[in-house]
């Protein structure tokens, strides 16, 4: 691109539009994060439900798996940050949104352990919906907007649902908030990567 070429007003506007579009299309969500959490929370919920209803035990608290899943997630996030050649505005916002979510989840787990509220799952699902809905809105990604709303509907429904059926609502929440959107994002990412 020659630096001193004199542009007409029309050419200038076209160049601006084309470069903004290039920047906008550079960022493609890989879907690893939502997919990983979607699989994990859905599986943990279903396994917990199966343990209670079928009266068996796997010998440890299945929700501890969520802590182990944090490790590959952190490694992946750090690696992609290192490989990143640019930071999109929305990425910076997303970092704050999901960090807020992680902190709230830790606080909620602590609150749950100390206060042992009767409808803890309702609180979890309410919190699940917040970053999901914001992400969907900012990225204009409808499956996550819908997923966020489903989390809130499940949260409300769980107040009128007895345990262990609330665990099924939890599985529906994580499935619709992360698992399904994660699959869609991953497929889209792999398709675009091979183009």
């Amino acid at each position, binding site marked *: 691109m020659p630096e001193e070429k004199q542009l007409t007003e029309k050419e200038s506007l076209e160049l601006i539009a084309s*470069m903004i579009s290039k920047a906008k299309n550079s960022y493609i969500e890989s879907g690893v994060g939502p997919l990983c959490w979607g699989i994990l929370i859905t599986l943990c919920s279903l396994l917990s439900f199966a343990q209670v209803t079928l009266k068996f035990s796997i010998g440890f608290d299945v929700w501890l798996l969520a802590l182990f899943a944090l490790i590959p997630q952190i490694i992946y996030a750090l690696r992609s940050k290192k490989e990143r*050649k*640019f930071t999109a505005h929305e990425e910076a916002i997303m970092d704050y949104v999901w960090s807020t979510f992680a902190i709230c989840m830790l606080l909620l787990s602590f609150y749950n352990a100390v206060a042992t509220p009767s409808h803890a799952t309702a609180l979890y699902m309410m919190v699940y919906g917040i970053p999901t809905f914001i992400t969907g809105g900012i990225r204009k990604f409808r499956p996550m907007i819908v997923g966020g709303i489903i989390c809130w509907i499940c949260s409300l429904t769980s107040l009128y649902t007895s345990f262990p059926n609330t665990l099924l609502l939890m599985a529906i929440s994580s499935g619709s908030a992360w698992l399904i959107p994660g699959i869609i994002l991953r497929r889209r990412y792999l398709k675009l990567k091979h183009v």
Partner: protein
Amino acid sequence: MFKELDPILHSQLRLAVMSLLIGVKEAEFTYIREKTNSTAGNLSVQVQKLKEVGYIDVVKQFKDNYPQTTCKVTPKGIEAFEAYVKALQQYLQAGQQQS
């Protein structure tokens, strides 16, 4: 009365760099070079000019033992870019009215 187009921005490569950086929070030199299809030498000169007038911030650091240059638009750069786009629109509107 027409506003004069900012001579710093009214150049193909500098305008391309600014338009690209407006769309992101920050970007590496290699990313800008790739997206603008420019040579490293040419881009380096234009980035320096944008830096001198305070339109962009340039941070040079080492990442995994390799030099890394990151560019970011400053508030002054955003202001200048917005004024440039407004001036362009004025010119185009006037052109449409005349024809």
